[in-house]
């Protein structure tokens, strides 16, 4: 399903640069960005600050995907991971450039910018972070 370009570029800070938000009241960090903090609620409105997340972390859990739809089919089989980054924030994405049988909980990974998808031959190309082994 083709999306208009605006849907892509408005998410660039998060998808390209791992930019989340930090609550100016309690200091809690969120990814993706939130307009207010679920803990401080109204108090936090207008006090959420952009916060660049560390690109490194470790695999919290994973799966090897054997059935997928659309553009991701060309990747099959591929690894998907939940990563607890070094700010203790959970992220979700693909783990690439990796020998699949070596994927395990606790392995160190690093976020890199990769091609995610494309809207056909004439449409825009979507980019976002994926993870690669860090050691």
């Amino acid at each position, binding site marked *: 399903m083709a999306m208009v370009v605006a849907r892509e570029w408005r998410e660039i800070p998060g998808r390209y640069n791992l930019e989340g938000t930090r609550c100016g009241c309690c200091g809690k960090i969120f990814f993706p960005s939130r307009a207010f903090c679920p803990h401080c609620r109204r108090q936090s409105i207008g006090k959420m600050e952009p916060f660049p997340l560390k690109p490194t972390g470790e695999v919290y859990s994973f*799966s090897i995907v*054997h059935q997928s739809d659309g553009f991701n089919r060309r990747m099959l089989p591929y690894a998907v991971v*939940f990563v607890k980054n070094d700010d203790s924030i959970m992220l*979700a994405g*693909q783990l690439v450039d990796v020998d699949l049988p070596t994927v395990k909980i606790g392995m160190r990974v690093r976020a890199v910018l990769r091609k995610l998808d494309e809207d056909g031959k004439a449409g825009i190309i979507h980019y976002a972070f994926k993870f690669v082994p860090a050691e």
Partner: protein
Amino acid sequence: MRDVAIIGAGSTKFGELWGASFRAIGIEAGARAMQDANLGGDEVDAIYIGNMSAGRFINQQHIDALIADYTGMATNHVPTTRVEAGGASGGVAFRQAVMAVASGLHDIVIVGGAEKMTDMDDDSINSVLNATSDAEWEAGMGLTLPSLYAIIAQRLMAEGIATREEIASCAVNSHFHGAMNPDAQFRKAVSLDTVLHAGPVAEPLTMFDCAPISDGSAAVILCPLEEAKKHTDNYVKVCSSMQASDTLALFQRESITHFNATRVAAQQAYQAAHITAADIDVAEVHDDYTVAGLMALQDLGFWKEGEAGRALLEGQTRFDAGKTAINTSGGLKAKGYPIGAAGLSQIVELTQQLTNRAGPRQVRNAKYGLAQSTGGTGSAVTVTVLEAM
């Protein structure tokens, strides 16, 4: 608030219903439920319909109007409301209908759920299912819905809460019961080996860990409890129907080895019904993935964390085992998973069980039944408690 009763229940057969359109499927279960309740049609005050994605599956929005029209209720201008909550669409629709009767606003309400999935190609169907997770930050990043449940399974295994065999045995339990349900998509028992060695979908989950793509509908008729006897002897009481939410994305949770929404809705449902988990004789849980079924047994309090897997593996969950019977309909795995219909299909099964009409899979002396319906990865959950009268 008034007490509410279910006075009629009906389901289509679930499966690949190539000969039937959405509108044919959508009205069939409702008609059966009306017949079961001995109603003619003019008595109906309101209709609620659970449907997740007719907009994408058959390119039809405005399902409320379609259902009102083809059930013949548009000529009476009966208010009809479509409810969407991912996989919990049916469960949430049921709760809305219960509240409408309990409040005193409506007396006779039909609540149904329907989905027509097989008019679309498999690739597109999977993209619709994936969109019940966070489409921007999970599905959009390449994480399929089964892979999110696989990530949960991997974590349950790593933390020693369940083994791979225990997780897979949830499908064995559902198929064991599905073999006895004439409305089930799969009327065939399967072995643990079959589940473990089926083609991989998202490791460690195989095709047999995942509920199928299905067409079908299910519906029940509600009325005030004190009016129920006027219509039928086969009625059950709705003790409580509760709903809870959680983050849309699974990766936003503090823990992924349980669903807080299930725990909260269950606690509220037990409290309102003045019972505990130990009182439940028969339960229908949302096993769209085996691992979800296993977690539900723990989150609902039927078994302690780390013990539900063994109960499934040992067959303690079967209709005749004398404990809480789990998914006697065949569950989503074997009865089938026409998404919006799933929550109502559970209520239909419990109604049959609690009125002693469940045939060869009848749970003896069943007094309390529970249904748990889940959207996405536990982002919306309803828990309903019913009582035999």
